[in-house]
């Protein structure tokens, strides 16, 4: 039996099988049973596997006295207090790069699906409306001004894909990058010069509600917002109001502030495409993420350098 490990998130069956072959895997129980579980089992837990959207609380870290590593099966680590983990002597790993392409694909897919209203078109057919008349005309997606908030790995991959659509690409972020695209230090300035604004920045205290009413108004009634980052990067109330009042043209959202809860108003809007946080949720990518997460765990317990450490 390998090291004792606590699993907080769901995993692909194939990833779970590989994990179970080398670790003593314990599933995190339902809420009512957690206190008892911790009392009886906390001792000896040396590793936690969690998702980027779940992370781990400081309290949980404190209650696992033998914890050595938290392995995130995801790229985002905004739900982990890095300073606290460091102080507790806990290593933290994530799974960058392997999900970049799928998330970038999804971002461009959202843009095309919002502007051409494809899910609404599918509803038009499935609801039997087509024989009674065509779907309303939609808007062109190519040849537009595309703004990317955060030209990191995923932002860069989005830019690569957009290069095939004959538009103009600009970006914002804390630093200018060695690329040809126009740079705006200010997000509102970028939004004012964009028809479509892609949010691909990491979530942090500095980017909390970065996309606020001023940015949305700069994007304007013809503008489209795509968010594949984290819900917290956007002032969601301001976004919902802008969409409902027609001050923003449309939105494609894969992430929300309080997942899996989606603001009720969004559900009634036709100018939005809503996805249940599936940016990296393909079989191929989840398999690759699982393998990288396992590599990190194996390296930790073998005393080798971690492939993709955060802390």
């Amino acid at each position: 039996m390998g090291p004792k490990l606590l699993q907080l998130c769901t995993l692909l069956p194939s990833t779970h099988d590989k994990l179970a072959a080398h670790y003593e895997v314990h599933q995190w129980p339902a809420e009512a049973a957690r206190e008892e579980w911790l009392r009886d089992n906390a001792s000896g837990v040396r590793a936690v596997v969690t998702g980027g959207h779940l992370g781990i609380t400081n309290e949980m870290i404190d209650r696992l006295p033998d914890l050595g590593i938290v392995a995130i099966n995801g790229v985002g680590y905004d739900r982990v207090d890095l300073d606290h983990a460091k102080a507790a002597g806990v290593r933290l790993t994530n799974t960058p790069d392997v999900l970049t392409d799928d998330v970038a694909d999804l971002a461009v897919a959202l843009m095309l699906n919002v502007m051409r209203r494809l899910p609404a078109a599918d509803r038009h057919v499935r609801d039997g409306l087509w024989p009674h008349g065509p779907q309303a005309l939609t808007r062109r997606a190519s040849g537009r001004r595309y703004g990317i908030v955060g030209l990191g790995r995923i932002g860069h991959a989005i830019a690569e894909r957009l290069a095939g659509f004959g538009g103009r690409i600009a970006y914002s972020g804390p630093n200018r990058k060695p690329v040809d695209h126009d740079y705006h230090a200010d997000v509102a300035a970028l939004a004012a010069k964009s028809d479509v604004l892609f949010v691909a920045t990491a979530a942090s205290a500095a980017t909390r509600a970065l996309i606020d009413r001023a940015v949305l108004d700069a994007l304007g009634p013809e503008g489209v917002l795509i968010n594949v980052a984290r819900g917290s990067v956007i002032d969601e109330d301001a976004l919902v109001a802008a969409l409902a009042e027609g001050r923003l043209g449309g939105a494609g959202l894969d992430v929300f502030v309080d997942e899996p809860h989606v603001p009720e108003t969004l559900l009634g809007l036709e100018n939005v495409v809503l996805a249940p946080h599936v940016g990296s949720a393909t079989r191929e990518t989840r398999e690759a993420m699982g393998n990288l997460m396992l590599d990190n765990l194996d390296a930790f317990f073998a005393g080798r350098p971690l492939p993709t450490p955060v802390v």
Partner: protein
Amino acid sequence: MSGRVRVLTLGDMGADEEKALGAHFDVVAAADAGAVGRDEAVRGIVTRGRTPINAALMDRLPNLEAVATISVGYDSIDVAEAVRRGIVVSHTPDVLNDEMADFTVGLLLATLRRFPAAERHLRAGRWRNGEEFPYSPSLRGRTVGIAGMGRIGGVIARRLEAFDVPIAYFARSPRPASPHTYHDSLLSLASACDTLIVVLPGGATTRHAIDAEILKALGPDGVLINVARGSVVDETALVEALQRGEILAAGLDVFADEPRVPDALLALEQVVLLPHVGTATHHTRGRMGQLAIDNVIAWFDGRDILTPVPECAGLDRRRPART
């Protein structure tokens, strides 16, 4: 409106088209060809391309000179019969290439990443109730085959190159300028790829070109995207292949008997079904309508047709204007 050339419109014209046509012609409108009786005054037709223009209709319009379809495909028109009668046929190529390419990539990604189904899952409250949406297929690791490397196919390829996926294609002859792998048959292409985009022209020669054998060659991970014409795909074979898991998924903008979509397709979760909206943006529909109208205006002004179909290339020179 005597003195003006009479033009018949078939199918819904937009407000802009009605206005532009009304400024030049004596316009009579019909929903489809079946509603048109004998009319010796009609000299031109502007059509949406969704109703057949055949010998029987041409018999009822004995003074017909020009047919302009607001579409790039012209399989709804009996062009051989038109040529025999000296009727010039025009279409609207090129102005819709970008739109079709955007749309095709959007439909491909929506099919792979199961957007409409994911939205249904979310809007029905299933995500909120703790039910994760199943992992979807990915574009990653796929090989995309393009059946029909014409103007639109070429732009689709350019878009997809930026997604860093290998691309292969079928056409009647290799495209020397294309960096992609050429296949001289549809079967060879379907065997070599797992994602097949159909942009072949409609008509008798491509009828059911995508049949059970092609779908089987595409394989159990296969994804079929049809943005061409419903007639190009054997719809019954497609439904069976999807039901049996012989292919994985399909994204369809066109159907054999539009606007009717088979119940068997509506029952499937792994298909995206769209109401023939490939070019349906304000921008492009406007340009297509304008080009079709410019064609009939040019003809009746005594100038060359701007964009005749290739079969009418010899007819596109205006005969001496009638006075």
